[in-house]
């Protein structure tokens, strides 16, 4: 019964997320209890990098969620597959690799807490974008994107940044 706990918890989160009133967070699909897609927007309409943009997050839950962190990354999507007919790209950010993998301590083994939930993680990522004005990728992005074959949760990031 490895996933029973996770399923129960996700079943409780789902209706709340569907009825969420947090601006800029929209549940796109949750056809099962393993993979959810969520669109986030930065609500600052004057933001030089992210104003008017929508980004797509993919949450993947293991059977041990919420004890274990979900796997969260940005994904690309074609315009035709989106409700607003706009394509989704990977946001420019010094902690987001161009393949969508996010370097955020909150999503790491050590930084995760089972008190977090899908909505709170989405909100954290929203504010992580809103607070950034640097139009750049992390150091060594090209090499990492080319060579990384690990799943995001197995990558060992070093969090040397306070604002990471």
């Amino acid at each position: 019964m490895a996933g029973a706990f996770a399923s129960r918890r996700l079943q409780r989160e789902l209706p709340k997320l569907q009825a969420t009133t947090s601006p800029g967070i929209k549940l796109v699909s949750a056809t099962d209890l393993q993979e959810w897609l969520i669109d986030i927007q930065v609500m600052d309409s004057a933001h030089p990098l992210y104003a008017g943009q929508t980004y797509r997050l993919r949450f993947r839950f293991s059977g041990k969620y919420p004890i274990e962190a979900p796997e969260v990354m940005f994904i690309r999507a074609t315009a035709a597959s989106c409700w607003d007919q706009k394509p989704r790209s990977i946001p420019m950010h010094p902690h987001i690799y161009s393949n969508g993998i996010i370097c955020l301590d909150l999503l790491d083994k050590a930084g995760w807490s089972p008190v977090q939930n899908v909505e709170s993680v989405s909100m954290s990522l929203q504010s992580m974008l809103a607070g950034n004005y640097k139009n750049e990728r992390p150091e060594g992005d090209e090499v990492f994107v080319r060579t990384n074959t690990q799943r995001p949760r197995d990558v060992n990031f070093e969090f040397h940044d306070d604002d990471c």
Partner: protein
Amino acid sequence: MDDPSVDELLMGDPSSSVLSDRLLSDQEALTESRSYTRLMDADLRARLQLRRPTSSRTISNKSTENGFSVWDIRNLEYATEVDDNLMCPICHSPFVSPAALKCQHIFCRQCLSEALSHQQDNKTCPTCRRPTSSNSMVALPKVICRMLEELRVKCPLAFRGCNEIIPRGNVQTHLDRYCGYEEVLCPSEDCDQYLPRRLAGKECLHEPLPCPDCGEEVSLLNLNNHRMGSCKVAEIICTDCSSSVPKSMYEDHITSCMETVLKCTASKYGCDFTAKRSVMQEHIESCALVKLAPTIALQNDRLGEHARALKHLQQKNAVHEAFLDTVKDTLATIASADLATSSLPSDSAAPFDSPLSHLLSLHEALREEVSRVSAAVSDLDAKTDTAFLNSSLRAKEEAAHRDAVLAQLRVQLQWLVSSRLQGIHAARAGAGALGISDTRRNSNDAESSSARPLPSTRRGSDGLGNGGREKL
């Protein structure tokens, strides 16, 4: 009732919450049972029934085999909405045997120990991340636990049909004693099978009996299912003619029962005659609409075909109109840009296979050109703007500087004029008293003294100049 010791005993065991809850509910049941003593004494059989499952339940494996419902307190469905403050932040369900940390954050004991065991070495509170340890869990005050146990839940056997809503702490008692849908041992001493409590009477329902219809041996418990399902002979009473029909014949009967009230076959074409099947044949022979029905149906089909064809043509027409519009637009663009087109790469248009695509490509090229030009214009605009701003800034600065100098000069001039006037006055007075020769000397004095106050005026003008620059 000694809860803390029970808690200590069970701490660290993953199934502890369920067990402790069962213990708790058993204890509660004990007190409750006292009030039921009279009722139980009245029914000895019921008491007998109670004993059996309770004794076999002690070995959990056996109880699953035997069909006693094993339920998980975390799977219970709550009958009312539970206050968000009573929800464990980890499992998002109402607390189950809650435990608090030193930082006053509360979780289900099981959730918390699972979350802490997953952390590597420095254990922290999942909510506030303050350092803590697995040993620092404290049980909550009893009054809160009791309130949680009083939350109303649906019976875990609701899927079998039980509609009871009971306090959470009494679920086990309910299942063990009262739930009519829980399986209990057959009341017969010779039978070791189970049946739902609500069906348990005095006699055994498992004994095979011949079905009154087909003679097949069926237990009383399954007789109803058998007669409705697998029994080939059981009879069903027709609702129309109220005669009993063998089940196997029933399908045929309802399509031929003479008492069934039917609508005329032409009812969809407007005949509202209804009658029993026995009379219907007569009507059908005389009904004009029935005779017309095949023709009407044919006409309907044709109309449908025409409508479909029309729709298709309309779609086609719309496409053509859109196409025509595009062509018109392209022509208009080309006409308006008569000479400009010749300067465009019209040579490359040669390989196009139709004049239209040629025109379209020209149109596209023009559009590109226009967007390029507009980009260049806006670029230029921005450039001139900055240049203008730069030069005007410099000019402004210079003007301010000039202003300052002018002001300084004006002050000097004023002073000079006034000193000159003074000199003239003095000369006039001197001419009146001493004679004309002294007048020159006086005026010389006035001139030499004019060098003295100069520094002070310069200082004043400096201050003025500074003031003017600060304004910039």
